């Protein structure tokens, strides 16, 4: 088992390296840098001014070198600019260059500085992650149990009326992306045009104080889209288990139907959906981005849109590292969990 986890962690690190490099490469394309220079300086900079700005700040080094510096495996640049001023990556504004450390990358805990939010990236990410974590927590709490119940109820008697109704419902929810369901929910439950006004149409106030009123709609919006998918997986798995020979054996042993479902079918039927739930995370992240935009909840997804829209390179890199790590860690958990759930795979 140890070797297995080690291998997976190795693959995970490699994946994370590859992905961050891709992000790094794409954000550091010259047109992007040019745009950034203009937003930092002024919009009417000449090409030469842009170039000298980029050069002075170390942006014109080879991309691999820059990546190494960002990671912290190469020493940070020290560049004498065209204006004669010497700038170093690792020197904070109040520290003289000579005293600055040689390395200052992610490995040294230095995630960089968000140009847009005027804050350190790790600070931004920590704050935003907490907000989004709250959102995700409630989403999972709502989505997973209801999806499993839906799936088990539908798959327990395949082809029955209950099955048809629930399956159609889950197909419906998978066909409703967050930006559609969110808009519909707001229109129906939050606007005075319909008149229900049960909930609030924005979740901005939930950043300080979560209430049912301001938080239920965003949570529901994310949960609904993911729920159908998990429910359908659970249903398929449950239906397959229910037609299997050992369920017939149990039935012909005289086990009652509720006991067949609870004792014999459930554990076998939940093995497959478990993996699916864990692999939902990249999807949920999408949902988070859309919903945070839709409901104006300034969390992780909102920060992603902000960073990407304004080419806030270091913030964007930080965000992608975190999201990639989240995705990979859940994949790892799903693999390990699968092994534990499924007695047929021996770990020894």
């Amino acid at each position, binding site marked *: 088992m140890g070797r297995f986890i080690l291998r997976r962690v190795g693959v995970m690190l490699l994946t994370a390296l590859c992905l961050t490099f891709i*992000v790094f490469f794409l954000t550091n394309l010259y047109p*992007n840098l040019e745009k950034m220079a203009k937003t930092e300086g002024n919009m009417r900079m000449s090409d030469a001014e842009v170039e000298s700005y980029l050069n002075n700040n170390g942006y014109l080094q080879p991309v691999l070198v820059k990546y190494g510096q960002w990671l912290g495996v190469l020493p940070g640049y020290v560049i004498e600019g065209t204006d004669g001023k010497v700038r170093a990556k690792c020197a904070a504004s109040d520290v003289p260059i000579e005293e600055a450390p040689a390395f200052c990358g992610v490995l040294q805990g230095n995630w960089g500085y968000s140009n847009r939010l005027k804050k350190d990236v790790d600070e931004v990410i920590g704050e935003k992650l907490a907000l989004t974590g709250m959102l995700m927590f409630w989403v999972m709490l709502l989505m997973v149990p209801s999806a499993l119940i839906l799936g088990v109820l539908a798959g327990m008697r395949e082809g029955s009326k209950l099955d048809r109704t629930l399956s*159609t419902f889950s*197909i419906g929810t998978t066909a409703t*992306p967050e930006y559609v369901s969110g808009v519909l929910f707001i229109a129906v439950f939050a606007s005075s045009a319909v008149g229900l006004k049960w909930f609030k149409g924005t979740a901005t106030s939930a950043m300080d104080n979560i209430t049912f009123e301001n938080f239920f709609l965003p949570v529901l919006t994310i949960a609904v889209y993911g729920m159908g998918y998990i429910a359908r997986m659970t249903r398929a798995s449950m239906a397959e288990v229910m037609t299997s020979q050992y369920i017939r054996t149990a039935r012909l042993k005289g086990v009652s139907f509720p006991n067949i479902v609870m004792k014999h079918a459930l554990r076998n039927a939940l093995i497959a959906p478990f993996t699916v739930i864990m692999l939902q995370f990249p999807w949920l992240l999408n949902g988070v981005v859309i919903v945070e935009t839709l409901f104006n909840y300034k969390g992780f997804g909102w920060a992603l*849109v902000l960073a*990407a829209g304004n080419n806030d390179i270091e913030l964007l890199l930080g965000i992608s590292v975190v999201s990639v790590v989240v995705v990979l860690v859940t994949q790892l958990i799903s693999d390990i969990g699968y092994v534990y759930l499924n007695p047929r795979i021996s770990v020894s």
Partner: protein
Amino acid sequence: MDPLSWSGIFLQMVQQFAAPLIAVAVTFAISIVFKRRLGLYGKLFDSVIGMIGLALVLFWVFTAFFAGALDMVGTHDPLDQSAMMKKALPGEPYTKLIGEPDPDAGAHYLLGGDNLGRDVFSRVVDGSIKVMLIAPFATIFAFMVGITLGLPAGYYGGRFDTVLSFLANLVLAFPVILLFYLLVTPEIKETLIPRIMAGTLFLFPIVFLTVLWNSRFRTQAAKRNLYVGITLVVGTWVYLGIAWDADPTGIISFPPNLLVVFVSVVFVNAPTVFRIVRGLALDIKTRDYVAAAQTRGEGPWYIMLWEILPNARGPLLVDFCLRIGYTTILLGTLGFFGLGLESESADWGKMIIDGRRLLSANILHIAIPPALALLSLVLGLNFLADGLREESLRD
């Protein structure tokens, strides 16, 4: 002129949709009559869910066709603005204040006007054209890529499989929105990246078809040369036009704006298709008929394309329908974040986010119609997939 009542709006809309509705009805009538002779497609008419799905999908296909090719269905020019009609309610009579009056314009804004005074109804109809142009084709390309790589990965296994699977997982671990934000930006069009990606991805269909013919007719040189020749000539021509905008005859070209969107969508979908195909190939390669092909000395590509692939068609077809739906959702997402399109054009996702801002002002008619349009199309595709899955499982 008086505003239309809700029933009036409804009647008028049915009238506008007459052409696609009739087309759907005719298709259904013909199909039901001959359903026993139409194989899997015919069996779809035994399943209620499948029929509903097919009807919804056909409705939008025909709407896009009649609107795009014959300029029917819509009542106004989707880009035409009118200062008087800003945020106009559904059914309000049309008044033109800016620019040239549209001679063909209808009497009312059936679903009201948006915040720039454009006709919501016509824009929703117009939005279907773009979806129908991109979603199915992007999905086909994603399938070509996924199949061409997934078959050998599953069939050979080993190192090749390890590397490809790693790459596929790499793409899949990327949050899609982040990828879109990085790939579909105005800045990236200035670089060679979209061209290179297009150049790589669009090679796959040519490779796929060439290998397909070559393996099939390897024993009959004349036929093989004919088929492979045609594929290569036509393929290269189209390829140069689409991917590199270098068609020597100048007939084929692809707007760079759309190209980026198209390529990104293919890029996001291909790894999933790859994984499905790989899994199917792993399963089917253990069958005796594959062993029989091996023992008569068939080449690996013949076995993959003619022995394995046809027998994987059931699950692939189902996934194809689902994936078109997913692609539609992705296109909406792109629009939602305002990525990769001209600011004016009618795009369902863009319309939804524009309308969202007015929801708090109690104006629902701008956001709801595109939302329902997208929902009904994706729902139709999912129902269709479910019907296909159920019916193909039945034999």
